[in-house]
């Protein structure tokens, strides 16, 4: 029995579906494919980063209030910088 619509019959449409389910923000200079709806807080959890030990810049704006991390969904084209303190003089 034929599945309708079979994905192989409409490759363009299936690709479109996959695209809309994911987003591709640039995180620390590298494009990263994430599930649509991923927030800054989700991203930090996925990366196992303690929000208290990092500073996040979203499209060149520093997110000074860490309580906003879970309320900020990311989008394709967003630029995220996650920084921390390292040894220096």
């Amino acid at each position, binding site marked *: 029995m034929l599945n309708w619509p079979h994905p192989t019959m409409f490759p363009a449409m299936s690709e479109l579906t996959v695209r809309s389910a994911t987003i591709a923000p640039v*995180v*620390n*200079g*590298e494009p990263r494919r994430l599930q649509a709806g991923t927030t800054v807080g989700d991203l930090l959890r996925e*990366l196992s*980063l303690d929000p208290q*030990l*990092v*500073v996040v*810049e979203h499209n060149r704006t*520093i*997110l*000074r209030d860490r309580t906003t991390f879970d309320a900020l969904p990311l989008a394709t084209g967003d630029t995220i*910088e*996650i*920084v*921390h*303190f*390292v*040894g*220096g*003089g």
Partner: protein
Amino acid sequence: MATLLNIPGSASAALDTPFVIGGRGFRSRLLVGTGKYASNETMVQAIEASGAEIVTVAVRRVNLDRTREEGILYHLDPTRYFLLANTAGCYTTEDAIRYARLGRAAGFNEYIKLEVIGDKETLLPDTAGLIDATRTLSAEGFRVMAYTNDDLITALRLEDAGVSAVMPLASPIGSGLGLLNPYSIRTIKHRLTVPVIVDAGVGTASDACVTMEQGVDGVLMNTALAAATDPVRMAWAMRAAMDAGRLAYLAGRMPRREVAVPSSPTEGLLE
């Protein structure tokens, strides 16, 4: 002196005026960096031995493919040390301001060790960019400690721009060449109201001592400790040298003479 040396922090502190930067008092006139140590364990031990309170750190991207924990806060207790973020690696006013804001957002304090580097080979400061960045950051409430040349006019302009401390170099960053121009450093100290902290170029204990003998308020060093064969021993040496230099400055040295003057009586000699 035995009792003085038993005083925690620094021996000279007991005989000294308080060390204040941007309205806040600090225990030690020795400031240390945290870069380039062979291991985090050695870094922590050396900083402990140095007696330093102010410890500089750099702002960098988190390595997302990390194999080991490189964040300094995993190794250094921020309740024990005063973390001073720097803008090392910034070559423009805009970058330095961005890094300073990121450093402040880490949430520890309003202080920034401001660097605007003008040249990759010498790492000498871009003083025009430095003055611009100082003006912007001071207006935003930062306590700016500006890494600068041993140049009086730049130091005066930085003071006008609102710095909390000027930090002229002894010699280029990481060079270990020691204090190349004591005259310039003394002149800056005489003419400025804000603290003068010599930053960069100190190579060994005698360099730190001679620098403090010029009357400056403090010294910041990193490579002198990190690149020593035994950083912990060198940290002890630096701590003692800082005290020696500061005490010698406060004591006031004897005048230099071009001729010998006998220390023993010239009377009562045998016929």
